[in-house]
């Protein structure tokens, strides 16, 4: 996504996709909504892990929290769709508060710490009588909306969230925050010694990623309508995010999208999340981490670009092969 041409293509793609509900059937719209949600999760997890070196196993906290806040707001009288958006923003706000604690943890502590925080949030949410513990509840207000319209709105919501997040991330990575994040991802002590404001940079990324996960969560709630704590706060979302990003390609721009497409395709082929299927996902993710660090996209894209390369004049400047140690 480097050139204005790419940007133009992206805008055209979004506009085209926005027209889909007009002529496509219900199941297509639903499936595409799910795909957008996967992509949202994958790109935000990639932002944290690939660019800032933050491996969080607790993103599901914000996925579920967005939905929970939305439910509470609806219970308090707010109309459904504004409540969904507000819920996501509320989750991002909580992420900002948590970041002061969580971002001071290192590596493994951070991974497990975010998981524990997610568990605490899940337990606290389950204590709320509105949620009724394991039983969960539903966003009944949405039932009042006519199904086809509801489906379309859910679709546009997910698409808008994805497009908005993609735009925000593209802007962010081009800004000084983006360079700072890459420096931190490489070596945070060295970056700090150069004056990079490590905590602030990480905070921006953490909160943005939380917002993305929360938007995905409310989009999920908007289409599924039911809210089950085990599902909406389940750690299997992290497994899926891990798979999409690692298989697609950590740190690459298009990698997460490829990974999301792949996950989506696999789900369609396998029917639903059976046990062996998830095991296979885990194995594939681990395998890619070990043997294909660039993910599938990283492994394939040099070959693809060679296929499409145009001949060019080679530079006449020769680069010395070695330099001696001064």
């Amino acid at each position, binding site marked *: 996504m480097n050139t204005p041409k790419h940007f133009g293509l992206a805008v055209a793609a979004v506009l085209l996709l926005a027209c889909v509900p007009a002529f496509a059937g219900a199941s297509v719209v639903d499936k595409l909504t799910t795909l957008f949600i996967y992509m949202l999760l994958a790109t935000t997890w990639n932002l944290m892990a690939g660019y800032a070196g933050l491996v969080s196993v607790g993103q599901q906290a914000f996925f579920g929290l967005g939905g929970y806040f939305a439910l509470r707001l609806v219970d308090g009288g707010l109309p459904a769709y504004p409540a969904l958006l507000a819920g996501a923003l509320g989750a991002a706000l909580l992420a900002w508060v948590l970041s002061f604690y969580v971002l001071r943890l290192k590596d493994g502590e951070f991974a497990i710490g975010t998981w524990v925080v997610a568990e605490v949030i899940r337990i606290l949410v389950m204590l709320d009588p509105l949620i009724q513990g394991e039983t969960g509840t539903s966003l009944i207000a949405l039932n009042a909306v006519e199904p086809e319209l509801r489906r379309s709105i859910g679709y546009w919501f997910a698409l808008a969230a994805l497009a908005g997040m993609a735009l925000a991330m593209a802007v962010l990575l081009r800004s000084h925050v983006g360079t700072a994040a890459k420096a931190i991802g490489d070596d945070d002590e060295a970056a700090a010694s150069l004056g990079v404001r490590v905590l602030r940079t990480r905070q921006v990324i953490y909160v943005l990623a939380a917002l993305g996960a929360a938007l995905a969560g409310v989009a999920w709630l908007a289409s599924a309508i039911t809210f089950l704590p085990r599902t909406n706060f389940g750690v299997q979302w992290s497994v899926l995010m891990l798979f999409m990003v690692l298989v697609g390609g950590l740190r690459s721009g298009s990698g997460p999208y490829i990974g999301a497409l792949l996950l989506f395709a696999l789900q369609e082929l396998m029917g639903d999340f059976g046990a062996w299927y998830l095991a296979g996902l885990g194995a594939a993710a681990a395998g890619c981490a070990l043997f294909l660090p660039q993910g599938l996209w990283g492994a394939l894209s040099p070959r693809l670009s060679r296929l499409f390369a145009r001949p060019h004049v080679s530079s006449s400047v020769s680069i010395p092969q070695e*330099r001696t*140690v001064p």
Partner: protein
Amino acid sequence: MSEMLLEVQGLRAAHGQLVAVRDLGFSIARGEVVALIGANGAGKTTLLRCLAGVHPTAAGRVTLAGQDITALLAHQRVRRGLAMVPEGRRLFDDMSVRENLRVAGDHGRAGEWTLPRVLEALPALPPIIDRPAGALSGGQRQAAAIGRALMTNPDVLLLDEVSLGLSPLAVEEVYRNLAALAGRTSLLLVEQDLSRAMAFADRVLCLREGRIVLQGPAQSLTREAVTAAYFGVEFDVEAERPMETQP
């Protein structure tokens, strides 16, 4: 059949894209003491680490007692009799001096250097034998590191930066200890102090930019020649002074 204990041919090593050691070749006889000198960054530490097996070599051959050890890992080279006292000593700080020595004794070769003998040869050690290695002074750490390497009964002992960070008294002590080894164990030591290096060693190797630019018996090399090689100035052997620089 060469009588050389350690032979190095065509050694080449790099740090990523930067070549640190290029096409290096030399040999060390049994019991010989060789001083390795050169400016910072000349490749001395890299060379030692390659010989010890903890730095990858891009090309070349290392032979110990006639056997090719180029492909061997560090711990395997120790078992063949090649040990190193690394830069920074690298003692196991949470373990006592005794335990540091015993680890090396457990996994090195058997031989004359047992724990009692090492303690006898390094008088600084017995008083601190049960102290944690992290609580030692610079000189004590050096003694402990040398003792640890000795416990593996090496035929060739590599020492990186012998006197770095030590007080003059401590340096005296170290060289007294090393003198006891000379003749039995071959020593290749990196030393920044030129006069000490030339006084102690049998032979001197001067490295610059990864190459040997001067080598010879310590007695027959003049200080001027060595200094010139060290800093990269052309030396006029007959006139025994640095050459005039070209206009």
